[in-house]
């Protein structure tokens, strides 16, 4: 008998216990089977890796051609920045698919969290792509608009006059710091998450994999203290990764996009950019797990639950895409400010109209109106096809925005302080051969790096799979067979 605060006595009813399949044999079975898949590298893998490697080589050629063309002509660089932004929107955002459901304690993430984290390795490529951009970023000396409160034309008696002492190269410093931090945090995240799995490689692996595991597991032996720290460390690094991702998108969208277009003042855009990243990150992961399931041998692990979980996320994010877009568009359209109307002409109704319509279909109409049907979400092929649609749409979006804005930047830099674009470009900047090489090459290069990394690091999280054994039970509830899932912490 117990009493509640009202002083009423009540009888506590007992709760039923269920048995899980957790045992030494089953835990061993998980690592044995996953290691077995990890150790095998099929011919098809090498063929595809060779293809992406070849694409990567093209990318390097494109990169060299681009750098050789110099940094003075802004409009030549539009496609380059678009590829960079596209990779930051897909590969850099994919780890969020591991981070967010892990915080929400959703069990369906377990088979896909490592693959999501592994995309951070491709961040190294983003870092390389970023280097020439340092030279392209206009400094504050020209008196351009900036977030860094320099060269403001406001009167002297206003409160932020003190900020004028900010160095002219502060955007360059901040951007570099942000992008380097993001890549470092990403690598730290994947390494931390791998520590227990490296120990598995060390103990159960053979040959070079064993050596690799010994080096990188840092003496992980799985003490309680180590496990407690594992959860804390991963929590902190994940939180910082998320914040840094938002900051980087905030940064890219302002410094590489908005400052180049006179009159583009859209306080929502950094959020929209980050949101596009989440949407494309989910699509990236859908496609990744589809490949892992169909070609990677993980058919028993990646099931409908995973596609379903991601499908629901993508459905919500697609609807949000429309909302973010409409929130900006409606204001510009309704207010009829000349500066904003010319912005709409540049980005939506002008030369990039067809690209915008295609993108609208690919990232909103197609995903939303197909994912709304449960049978599509509950399938393997449906989400994969829609992921391709979203990724294509996002690529078009990046090309549309970045190419247009760098084209505008090359026209009249001085008019930016007037905050109105007097002359909207009439034609799309056509991609040069180097641009095509860059687009194909760096997308292929990211996949290439991911594939290579997946040979070194188990692409399925072994310890999270073992942990799942503790919390999952198939039980008989009277006449029904039910699945019981535990919620630790």
């Amino acid at each position, binding site marked *: 008998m117990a009493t509640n605060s009202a002083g009423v006595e009540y009888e506590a009813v007992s709760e039923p216990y269920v048995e899980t399949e957790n045992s030494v044999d089953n835990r061993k079975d998980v690592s044995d089977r996953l290691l077995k898949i990890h150790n095998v590298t099929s011919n098809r893998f090498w063929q595809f890796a060779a293809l992406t490697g070849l694409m990567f080589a093209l990318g390097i050629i494109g990169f060299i051609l681009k750098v050789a063309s110099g940094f003075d002509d802004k409009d030549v660089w539009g496609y380059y920045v678009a590829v960079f932004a596209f990779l930051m929107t897909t590969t850099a955002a994919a780890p969020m698919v591991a981070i967010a459901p892990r915080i929400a304690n959703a069990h369906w993430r377990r088979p896909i969290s490592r693959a999501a984290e592994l995309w951070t390795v491709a961040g190294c490529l983003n870092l390389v792509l970023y280097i020439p951009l340092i030279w392209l970023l206009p400094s504050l000396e020209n008196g351009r608009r900036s977030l860094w409160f320099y060269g403001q034309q406001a009167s002297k008696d206003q409160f932020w006059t003190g900020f004028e002492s900010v160095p002219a190269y502060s955007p360059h410093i901040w951007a570099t710091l942000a992008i380097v931090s993001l890549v470092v945090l990403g690598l730290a995240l994947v390494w931390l998450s791998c520590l227990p799995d490296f120990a598995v490689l060390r103990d159960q692996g053979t040959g070079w994999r064993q050596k690799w595991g010994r080096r990188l597991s840092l003496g992980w032996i799985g003490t309680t203290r180590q496990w407690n720290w594992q959860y804390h460390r991963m929590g902190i690094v994940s939180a910082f990764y998320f914040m840094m991702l938002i900051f980087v998108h905030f940064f890219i969208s302002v410094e590489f996009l908005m400052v180049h277009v006179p009159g583009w003042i859209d306080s929502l855009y950094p959020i929209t950019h980050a949101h596009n990243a989440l949407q494309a990150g989910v699509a990236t992961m859908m496609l990744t797990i589809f490949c892992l399931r169909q070609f990677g041998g993980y058919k028993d692990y990646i099931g409908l639950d995973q596609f379903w979980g991601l499908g629901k996320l993508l459905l919500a994010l697609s609807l949000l895409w429309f909302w973010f877009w409409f929130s900006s568009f*409606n204001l510009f359209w*309704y207010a009829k400010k000349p500066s904003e109307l010319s912005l709409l002409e540049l980005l939506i109704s002008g030369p990039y109209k067809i690209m915008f319509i295609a993108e609208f279909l690919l990232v909103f109409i197609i995903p939303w109106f197909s994912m709304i049907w449960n049978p599509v979400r509950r399938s393997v092929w449906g989400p994969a096809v829609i992921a391709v649609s979203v990724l294509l749409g996002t690529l078009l979006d990046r090309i549309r925005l970045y190419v247009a804005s760098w084209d505008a930047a090359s026209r009249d830099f001085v008019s930016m302080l007037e905050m109105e674009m007097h002359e909207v470009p009439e034609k799309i900047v056509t991609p040069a051969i180097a641009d095509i090489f860059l687009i194909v090459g760096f997308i292929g290069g990211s996949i290439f790096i991911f594939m290579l990394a997946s040979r070194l690091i188990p692409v399925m999280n072994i310890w999270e799979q073992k942990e799942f054994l503790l919390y999952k039970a198939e039980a008989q509830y*009277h*006449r*029904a067979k039910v699945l019981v899932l535990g919620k630790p912490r």
Partner: protein
Amino acid sequence: MAKKSVLGLYTEEDSAADALDNLRDAGFEEGEYELLTGTPYPEGTFGEAEPEHHLFRWPLIGAACGFTGGLIITAGTQMAYPLITGGKPILSIPPMAIIMYEGTMLGAIIFTIIGIIFESRLPRLFMGAYSEKITEGHIGVTVTTEEGRTGVAEEALKKAGAEGDIIRGWE
């Protein structure tokens, strides 16, 4: 012939499931017997058939109606009194889209609510054989059948260990 209903009450889930088995064995068909509980149970706890419903059609029909309504209000109002304000076209899509969207959602939600009530087979005017103990945790198994077969049903319910007397009601 008038239909009658009988109700057996059980304290254990397994006895209620047994009662359903007994009824099936006695030749009662799906739809003649029903389970009454005070709380949702996991599907199939009593070995009962999964109820089929078409709830998902309702919001679609409602959305279509609401969308049409929104279109008529917005476009119709503007066409009825075509006056240009703020340099915006008579049929301005962004503001119209907002009202049409609200109309669509309103239609979808109202139809869903009607759908839920209809698909739940509500409102139910007569309770038939019912006991207030059900909302207190007892599990009821009720059989609605021709007057002549109630005896068989009562026996099947008792055999599974119904608590107390069998409750009788009419439909």
